[in-house]
């Protein structure tokens, strides 16, 4: 039933017997070299799409933001036709309030985080805003250092209550002003923040083994 394009097989027949007539009994010798797939002509690679690039963005919206916040707007880019602003996390609450009230981004569609451990400010907090009146989306990205505490958006968009709890739970970012910042998806006593890049299951497993069985995990 599969219809996906297969690379065309070359017509050279597979060798029938490995090694021909002079093969010693198979039991004494390790099996002959495995039948190599015939050297197929490589399929013509699919035409590469033009590499999308993060292009700097300069439109009405970004100009208004830069007017209001100047240096706090670090960058305005567009990636695959989706605009985003890179902002300074210190000005998060003002920019958020402005976005909601003036620019009419009334829905906080998502609030999430990406971990770039080799960066100095390792976390990339991303807020995805949507405006019902204008039917547009805007992303706000801000770099957050490990122990930095960005302002909580609960006052502006109550939906960020659980979203921030989830970021705290999985990444460890604390939000200043959150009414009830505690773990949400993981049990209360969990150590560590799993979605960080330096957290993996082997770590978790050896920690548990060390703690509960008193030995080193052999993994």
């Amino acid at each position, binding site marked *: 039933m599969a219809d996906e394009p297969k690379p065309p097989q070359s017509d050279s027949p597979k060798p029938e017997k490995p090694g021909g007539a002079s093969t010693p009994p198979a039991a004494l010798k390790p099996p002959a070299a495995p039948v190599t797939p015939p050297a197929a002509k490589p399929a013509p690679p699919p035409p590469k799409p033009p590499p999308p690039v993060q292009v700097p963005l300069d439109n009405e919206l970004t100009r208004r933001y830069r007017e209001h916040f100047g240096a706090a707007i670090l960058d305005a880019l567009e990636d695959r036709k989706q605009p985003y602003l890179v902002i300074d996390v210190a000005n998060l609450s003002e920019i958020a309030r402005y976005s909601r009230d003036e620019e009419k981004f009334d829905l906080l569609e998502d609030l999430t985080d990406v971990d770039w451990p080799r960066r100095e400010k390792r976390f990339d907090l991303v807020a995805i805003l949507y405006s019902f009146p204008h039917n547009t989306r805007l992303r706000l990205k801000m770099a957050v250092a490990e122990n930095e505490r960005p302002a909580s958006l*609960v*006052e502006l968009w*109550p*939906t960020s*209550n*659980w979203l921030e709890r989830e970021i705290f739970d999985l990444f460890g970012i604390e939000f200043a002003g959150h*009414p009830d910042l505690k773990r949400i998806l993981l049990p209360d006593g969990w150590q560590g923040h799993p979605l960080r890049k330096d957290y993996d299951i082997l770590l978790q497993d050896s920690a548990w083994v060390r703690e509960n069985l008193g030995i080193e995990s052999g993994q």
Partner: protein
Amino acid sequence: MNPTVLTILHFLQTWWVELTCGVVIVAVVPLVAGYVVLLERKLMADMQARLGPMRVGPHGLLQPIADAVKLLIKEDIIPAESDKFIFWLAPVISMVAALTSMGAVAFGPAFQVARDINIGILFVLGVSSLGFLGIILGGWASNSHYSILGALRSTAQLVSYETAGGLAIISALLLSGTLKISAIVQAQYDQHAWFIFLAPVAGFIYLVASIAETNRAPFDLPEAESELVAGYMTEYSGFRWALYFLGEYANMIVVGSIATTLFLGGWLRPFPNVHWLNWLDFLPAVIIALVGVYCIYRAGKQPVKVQTGFMWAVALGCFAVAFVFAALWLLHLFHRFGVLIPLNLDFILPGLNGAFWFLLKVSGYIYVFMWLRFTLPRYRFDQLMHLGWYILIPLAIINVFAVGISMLLEANGVNRWIGMVLTTVLVLAAAVFLVRWHDQRTESASTASLTPDSYAG
């Protein structure tokens, strides 16, 4: 002989009938209740486009037996902090109340289960109300949040609807003038009408009240699974739970019997006084024979061999019963026409016929119970209480007056049916008014409670 043995023998001699009745009730009624459960499951399945129990026995007929055995051999779990004696006692009370009230029910002329006492209806109502005690005690003894809440809710519901049901019964009792069950049916024969035609609103109120009294949907909040697991029955498992459950179904049968006696003419056939319809007396045998014929017709369409055999067995059973009826009729005819057969079993016939009609009506009533259960969603508790106190009880009171007025009118020469129609129209108008008024109150109460208060998350 030993004086103790003599006393015992004397006791048995005097009371052997009652004792046998007692034993029969305790032995038969739970079994019947079990089969009513199976009937409900099959009906439910039929209305839900599926088949119901099919595995245990042909067409699932041994399912109640299997369930009973399973429940009997289950581990007896008693919550740790519970009051053990009360925990044991509560389902017993529930069951005893249901079974005892069965004792006064009569399902044929001269076919009383125990005895046709002169306060028949009052006795049945009073004793079945004792079952509430079983519920409260069960909830209390379980020592759990859920159980207490469920028990209290259940009791409140039962008490409210008992009042409404009692008032509806009073309307019918006004018409009959007596509490004795056989006399009530006789009164319906004498007055040439089933009481449901003379007091239809009372019949309907009693229907609603009896559904609430037996904790059936749409009034089954106390035992609804999705609400508080199973309310007062949560901590009961195994056979204790079975006792509650069977008590509930036995209660259903009791309540159906009361309704049939009071409103549906008891063991009277339809149109008992119309002589040219006397051929209807043959109907029980004919109906049963027709059921047999239908089974034979379906036997050919069964997909599985064992079910074909089953259908044939049912058909033969039906024909056997019909044959009994027919044989008795034949004997009766022989006696009428002077053919000498030394056997006079005429006295059985009216009883048998009556029992057939009675059971048919009770089955119809229970069918309506089940039908409503599968169709309607559940009332919330406060809505249930509102319905009982704001609508049903006032309506029942008005209905008592209405029936009294219609009887008064009849005594003063007004045609009975005109009087009935007039008073029914009045009562229905009152009902419409009550419902509208109630809707308005709930409307205003709920809109008032919608004052917006903004919480942040």
